[in-house]
């Protein structure tokens, strides 16, 4: 959990300064896949607030987006196997498309594809470490 919080802080700093890729959203997705409980909401909430402050946006917009995104992930765990690569890629792609649309960012298709690849790689790393820890 501490490791994830650190990663989220780093991703917020990156998003607030040098990149438009929704890295924080990907980390929140991975956190939702691991935790699968309500504890992701406060993290999504504060991560969004911090990001809005750094990017001089209306405070709360990112929080609202992250909250709804994580809520939908948790909601779909009853219907689908969310702990899978197709789900991670599709959820990241759709989430980032909506994210780019809300914040009016450019090159949204290329960036969405790129962030989906990053999400799949990150998911693979996390999965590897979790199976290693369990065994």
């Amino acid at each position: 959990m501490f490791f994830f919080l650190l990663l989220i802080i780093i991703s917020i700093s990156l998003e607030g300064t040098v990149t438009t890729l929704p890295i924080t959203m990907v980390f929140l997705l991975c956190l939702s896949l691991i935790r699968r409980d309500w504890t992701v909401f406060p993290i999504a909430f504060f991560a969004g607030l911090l990001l809005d402050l750094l990017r001089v946006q209306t405070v709360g917009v990112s929080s609202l987006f992250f909250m709804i995104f994580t809520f939908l992930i948790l909601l779909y765990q009853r219907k689908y196997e969310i702990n899978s690569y197709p789900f991670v890629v599709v959820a990241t792609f759709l989430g980032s498309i909506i994210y780019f649309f809300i914040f009016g960012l450019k090159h949204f298709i290329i960036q969405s594809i790129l962030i989906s690849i990053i999400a799949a790689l990150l998911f693979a790393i996390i999965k590897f470490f979790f199976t290693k820890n369990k065994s």
Partner: protein
Amino acid sequence: MQKRSSFFPAFLFFLFLIGIIFLFSQSNIFGGFFEKMTLPLQKITFGIFNLSEKSTEDKLRQENMKLTTELAAMAEIEKENKALHDQFAISTPSSKSLLPAQVIGRHDEDIIVDKGKQDGIETGQIVVLKDNVVGQVSEISIHRAVIKLLGNSSISFTANTAKTEASGVISGKGEGNIIFDKVLLSEKLEKDDVVITKGDVEIDGLGYMPGLVVGKISSVNKKASSLFQSAEIKSLVDFEKLETVFILVGK
């Protein structure tokens, strides 16, 4: 597997909190404090990812910018002298003052600087670097401001060329492209001619003051069948390497 009911109340609670934040977002009760707290984090992160050695090319570019700016200023002085001789009214020098601001973020066609409402920044103020137009303040918070760069598609103001005095409208075309448009076919556009602002200052003192350098003409697009001619402008400022900019404050 968690049941929906186990996380639904928490979701509603945080949704309610967001609603409250939206309600108080204009009053900036806590925003200012948290903004100030997060400034060093943003500065450090931007500093890490913006570490670039100043190459010979950069130095030459800076020198070129300085010389071109001086040339444009000379052309302006010459014009003013001529006007004085002709007994035309000369406006008093502007009382605008320059406020230095450090770049702490960059997104698409915008940059974020470490100065905000508390430092006297207002939406619409012009941002320069050595008399060269960088952009315009578009969003502000207490300690930060977003500046839309010259190539931003929402940028538009009047300008004229220094040498041939052709008038037209500067507009950003996105992706950093700047176009000098709406120039009458009867007027002359030359490659490498410097384009300067004509002056679009509003009644409240905001806007583009005259004599600021926009850039150099890189190519001219002239068709006999068109009503106007246009030119592509290359800014003398390297927007990718901006570290400190100056905001024109004061009325």
